[in-house]
């Protein structure tokens, strides 16, 4: 692995940015400032960060309902994200999408998605596009273990494999499909085993070890860029919070939660950085403060932004039909 200290520090910063963005979102949701649902990514930061650290700005990702981490890691702007969570006009989607539907085409973010498993097919389309145009771009398809039981998983891995598309399927196995433990929702322990059926490499990595994720993604992305087709990477990880905020998580053993909290990916990287003299506690403290400042600014931006004007409700349904939709 040939990561520079600078790159490692940047990775730490990205993970911290995701964590603090979500800590704030959790707090604001609890206080009633954020409407709707919030599905937190906390605990899985090493996956999005480790994978996206390999990407160029024009590479694509598809994301999920638990998408904040992917979007931050792909370069999403915290201000527009937070404003979207608030339902404000300045949000990424002008307040029409919310937490589950953030996209930024200029950064290759093809959208978080409220339908479990729907991103798989879209990722294949983006991969086809890149391959057809010969751009060398790749598409990362992020998804959870739960979605691997959707038909779309099978359809997409099959299609990506027969066409050797530059798509990397990154499964964030956090052990639960909503409340259902993996042992109850599928008859295998390693989702990566399913890669065999598509004649593509299936790799299992510790999803809380950012370097393991980075390396696996690096290899898969290189393969994809070289025309060797897709890879299925399974990252074993854990969400610190429930499926959504407000989920009582009675289905999880508190002992299991404690064990995984001890494997916190950000803390692990912090210790690695100190032990290997990559950074100092003071420098990391300074980074933490910088991140907190960014989050505060994002919240201020969201709070001070206006709600969308009512007339915007019927805009953006089509590129060219607006007025006739106004008639109730």
């Amino acid at each position, binding site marked *: 692995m040939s990561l520079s200290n600078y790159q490692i520090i940047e990775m730490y910063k990205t993970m911290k940015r995701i964590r603090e963005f979500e800590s704030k979102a959790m707090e604001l949701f609890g206080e009633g400032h954020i409407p709707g649902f919030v599905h937190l990514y906390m605990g899985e930061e090493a996956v999005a960060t480790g994978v996206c650290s390999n990407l160029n700005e024009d590479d694509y990702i*598809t994301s999920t309902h638990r998408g904040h981490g992917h979007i931050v890691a792909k370069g999403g702007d915290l201000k527009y994200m937070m404003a979207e969570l608030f339902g404000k006009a300045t949000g*990424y989607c002008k307040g029409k*999408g919310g937490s589950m539907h953030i*996209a930024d085409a200029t950064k290759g973010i*093809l*959208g978080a998605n409220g339908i479990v498993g*729907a991103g798989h097919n*879209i990722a294949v*389309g983006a991969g086809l596009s890149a391959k057809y145009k010969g751009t060398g771009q790749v598409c990362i398809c992020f998804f959870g273990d739960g979605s691997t039981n959707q038909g*779309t998983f099978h359809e997409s891995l099959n299609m990506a494999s027969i066409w050797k598309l530059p798509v990397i399927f990154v499964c964030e196995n956090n052990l639960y499909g909503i409340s259902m433990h993996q042992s109850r929702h599928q008859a295998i322990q390693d989702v990566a085993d399913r890669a065999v059926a598509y004649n593509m490499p299936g790799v299992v990595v510790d999803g809380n070890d950012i370097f393991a994720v980075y390396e696996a993604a690096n290899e898969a992305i290189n393969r994809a860029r070289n025309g060797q087709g897709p890879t299925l990477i399974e990252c074993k990880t854990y969400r610190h919070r429930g499926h959504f905020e407000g989920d009582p998580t009675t289905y999880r053993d508190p002992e299991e939660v404690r064990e995984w909290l001890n494997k916190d990916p950000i803390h692990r990287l912090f210790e690695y950085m100190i032990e290997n003299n990559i950074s100092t506690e003071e420098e990391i403290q300074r980074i933490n403060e910088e991140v907190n400042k960014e989050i505060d600014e994002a919240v201020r931006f969201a709070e001070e932004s206006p709600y969308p004007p009512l007339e915007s409700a019927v805009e953006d349904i089509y590129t060219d039909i607006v007025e006739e939709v106004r008639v109730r």
Partner: protein
Amino acid sequence: MRKMTYSEAIREGMRRRMKEDPNIIILGEDVGEFGGCFGVTGDLIKTFGPERVRDTPISEGAIIGCAVGAAATGLRPIAELMFNDFMTVGMDQLVNQAAKMRYMFGGKITLPMVVRMPTGAGTRAAAQHSQSLEAWLTHVPGLKVVYPSTPKDAYGLMLSSIDDDNPVMYMEHKVLYAMSGEVDENMEPIPLGVADVKREGEDLTIIATGRMVHEALNAASKLSQDGIEVEVIDPRTLYPLDNKTIFNSIEKTNKVIIVTEETKRGSYAGEIAAIIAEECFDNLDAPVARVCSLDSPIPFSPVLEDYVVPNFQDIINAVKKML
């Protein structure tokens, strides 16, 4: 001008645009060497090769989803579903993805894509290969729906469907594939949302779609022998719907019958009827009537199928009842 079939017209519309724009690709089951289940893509693979006329596995959800992803990233895909009945297998990708992405993402993503849907009864293909499911599509904001009834309309609407920056559902009636007619290959695209008056008349307006346009025209010519002059309007685009042409006709005739091949309950014919009831009440001399298929799955046996689907005689009966 060239004589071509409805099926050829669809193909030649695609060919013309594909020659102009390398970003247009075709995706679907057996669309390549095989030429499409109904032969519509035909020899396009010879002109454009297997990268652009791409056979897919039997995975309707992935065909539509792949088109969505490709459209979001700069291509202009045309997806072929072998039968419109199979849209049910890929409905999430149509309804929750294709139709919603632009809106949910605040206009940040544009999806220029066409989904071709061979539609309708009359091929003795029974309940899972004969439906007319256009109302499923017109119900969903974010989709446009076109339904040509002649080779010329098929050609002109294919051009504009491909040109459109929104997901366009292109319904094509299987029984019409062999129908031939004059098509000007240099014609301008037929804009979406513009109806065509297929026959002028003073006594009653019939609004018909797809194959029912021809049943209505047949009925109209027979009624004419009895001195009854029926106006036949083909909306050609179901959404956006050309209300104006419909309203103008009703202002003249004061009577209207809507004829579609859909099962009647929850049909798009009902939507047209509701629009007319809301907007044209003062111009109506009789309640709006609908002639549709019976509320039954399409049966296999030819005698039963022909009974369930409306024909010119059902239309004549409805007209005589109204006058």
